[in-house]
């Protein structure tokens, strides 16, 4: 039960990464891999501030702001300096590695001694449950686990709704149109470069926010923790698209969240069944690879069938 709840909580927290990747890869069709660096940046900033006893809400918000800046930088490199999008992401991500080390002062720091959003949630949970643990359908559940799960769920629902509404405002539709057809949106008087910069900023802000949450959930920030974040996010988005079967905005957002949760559950099950954590990233990469080529293979297969049936 504790494993399941942990997987769900992680799934909700990581769905911020999925939402970020959804913005860059799906809305803007921009292969932004800054995420690996900005996720750690969010964690590092939040952890460093928490150790200094800064208010957890403020520390978490700083994590978001850090990612926002990182995304702005990638966007600026890609648009104003005309650097290839992938390369712009690689440059910022690589630079961020040193920045993150500087922020933390060493390769990892613990926040277990500080008051964090996790301890906040735990306190509220205990107050509501009047006990440190309780039973759900015969299973013992600690108030801390339950409150973290509920808190992360509520937050992600809120974030998803805000995102859904935002992308239907004047600014949001202009951003979606930029990803869809930049020639058209320029002809309608929108500076498409600024739209891309803002989009990547929001995307990386969300990803850094998830990093800040993760640091507080697991109790530490580590300079390596962001590696593979883009692929995980992409895997979630792809699973989500398979679940909802469309790229329509609202369903796409819901799908990304559901994909993230499902992905985390699959990971938890695979680890339980004996998959070595060392192989996790390889398996994920292969999964994304298969998901990317399958539609093309199916199309070819159908064509072949069509031909043979005609012959």
């Amino acid at each position, binding site marked *: 039960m504790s494993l399941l709840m942990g997987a769900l909580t992680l799934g909700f927290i990581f769905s911020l990464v999925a939402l970020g990747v959804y913005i860059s890869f799906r809305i803007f069709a921009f292969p932004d891999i800054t995420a690996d660096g900005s996720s750690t940046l969010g964690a590092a900033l939040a952890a460093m501030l928490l150790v200094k006893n800064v208010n957890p809400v403020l520390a978490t918000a700083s994590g978001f702001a850090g990612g926002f800046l990182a995304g702005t930088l990638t966007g600026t490199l890609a648009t104003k300096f005309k650097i290839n999008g992938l390369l712009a992401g690689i440059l910022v991500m690589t630079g961020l590695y040193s920045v993150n080390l500087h922020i933390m002062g060493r390769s990892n720091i613990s926040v277990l001694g500080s008051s964090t959003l996790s301890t906040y949630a735990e306190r509220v949970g205990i107050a509501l449950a009047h006990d440190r643990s309780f039973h759900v359908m015969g299973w013992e559940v600690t108030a801390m686990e339950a409150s973290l799960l509920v808190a992360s769920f509520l937050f992600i629902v809120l974030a998803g709704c805000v995102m859904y509404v*935002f992308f*239907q*405002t*004047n*600014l949001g*539709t*202009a951003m*979606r*149109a930029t990803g*869809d*057809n930049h*020639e*058209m*949106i*320029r*002809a*309608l*008087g*929108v*500076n*498409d470069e600024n739209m891309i910069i803002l989009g990547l900023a929001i995307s990386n802000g969300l990803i850094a926010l998830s990093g800040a949450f993760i640091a507080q959930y697991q109790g530490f920030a580590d300079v390596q923790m962001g590696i593979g974040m883009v692929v995980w996010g992409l895997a979630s988005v792809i699973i989500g698209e398979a679940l909802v079967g469309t*790229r329509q905005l609202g369903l796409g957002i819901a799908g990304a969240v559901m994909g993230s949760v499902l992905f985390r559950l699959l990971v938890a099950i695979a680890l339980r069944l004996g998959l070595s954590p060392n192989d996790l990233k390889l398996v994920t990469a292969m999964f994304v690879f298969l998901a990317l080529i399958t539609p093309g293979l199916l199309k070819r297969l159908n064509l072949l069938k069509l031909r043979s049936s005609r012959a």
Partner: protein
Amino acid sequence: MLEIRSVSKTFNPGTPNELQALQAINLTVNDGAFVVIIGTNGSGKSTLLNAVAGSFYVDSGAILLGGADITKWPEHRRAKLIGRVFQNPFSGTAANMSIAENLALAAYRGKPRRLGWPLRQPLLNELRDRVSRLNMGLEDRLKNPIGLLSGGQRQALTLLMATWLRPEVLLLDEHTAALDPKSADQVLAFTDTIIRRDSLTTLMVTHSMQQAANLGDRLIMMHRGRIIKDFQGAEKKRIRKDDLLARFEEVRRAELLDESAAEMLRRAYI
């Protein structure tokens, strides 16, 4: 009023692919004038439209529109004054977004995009009203993605978008060339109606001599980055498709003569 003052543009200067696309073009278009531009392939007619729209900056000369010198304005800033329809029906609309969202984007052309809600009831009513006048039955499909529509329907909607807010100048770049004949006629009829109704200042590039003869009140012929002929008023009204074809033949022959003469000289002296 649109004023183009000795505008030049050379692509790939200093390379073997150097192309003098525009050579000191001068053109003044009065308010409400409907100018049709024809020319051989690579004559610079589309380049002229793109120079006005700001797809690139010109090498020399100035472009004035509605009293403002827009020569150094970036493309998105000029869009406030300009409505555009491209040759490719896919270029003018965002395929994954609904018809209503696309039109709403156009209703805010040149205005700052903030957090306001685009699809408010008054705008929705106006959308329905204006779209129904296309007589394409699209007014009941406003929520559908625009990518599901045919090229002709998308081009008609692009035209509606380009003229939603009255532009200082409307730029049409062979906007019916990629359509089947029936859709092309439909879009062309709608084009003429809208331009006449709102007396829009228009530059229209076309490959079709028929269109060039029938439409507009001024006709410009381009060749090798220059304006070689400018028919206005009564002269434009008299002109027929065959006259234009004859003109082109003339240009082509002069060209042949030039080329063969040059070749002869080269052989004799090099």
